[in-house]
């Protein structure tokens, strides 16, 4: 079975500072990895996904993530955050291939302060 650990429940950061949200996964088989964002009172939106190929994945809103198989990590980064990035961020994993279910991490609340 797959599992996801998001190492930080909350990350406070000042506007225009860089940020990294950490995600580690566990799986005995190859996986796909995802980051979703949930803005206050809104549904989930996909930021980016890793299926195969280049380990550096670029997503929407200036976010990127790097798949590190040896460290079983998929950390999310942004070089300069905005107030509007304040949201809950969820890392998710599924077995690779086909129509496998997504397992979500506990989430990280990113709070961007002016």
């Amino acid at each position: 079975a797959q599992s996801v650990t998001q190492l930080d429940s909350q990350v406070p950061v000042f506007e225009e500072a860089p940020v990294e949200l950490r995600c580690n996964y566990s799986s005995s088989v190859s996986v796909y990895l995802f980051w979703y964002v949930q803005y206050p009172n809104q549904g989930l939106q996909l930021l980016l996904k890793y299926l195969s190929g280049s380990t550096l994945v670029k997503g929407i809103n200036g976010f990127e993530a790097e798949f590190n198989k040896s460290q079983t990590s998929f950390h999310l980064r942004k070089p300069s955050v905005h107030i509007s990035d304040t949201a809950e961020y969820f890392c998710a994993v599924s077995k690779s291939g086909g129509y496998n279910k997504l397992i979500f991490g506990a989430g990280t609340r990113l709070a961007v302060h002016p």
Partner: protein
Amino acid sequence: SAVISQKPSRDICQRGTSLTIQCQVDSQVTMMFWYRQQPGQSLTLIATANQGSEATYESGFVIDKFPISRPNLTFSTLTVSNMSPEDSSIYLCSARQGPNEKLFFGSGTQLSVL
């Protein structure tokens, strides 16, 4: 991109009653999933709604409590039966159009049980 309509968007129910949540997708999708998001927590998969056969439930969730129907490739329902205050949560429908595709989410049903 698929659009998922979920209703009701919110409801307040009495203990011991049942509520059926409907999920309509604007295009045919191969897989549909039902998640629960309890206040301040991550998403927990309840079950995979299989078209033409019984749903596949995750550990801790049973058909008697959460019966699911999926009569065709665009529609599914989740019923929360014999509700208790512990069932108060957001229930999310999601769908995947094809293999390796991202998961789309409905806007959720916020359920409060008194």
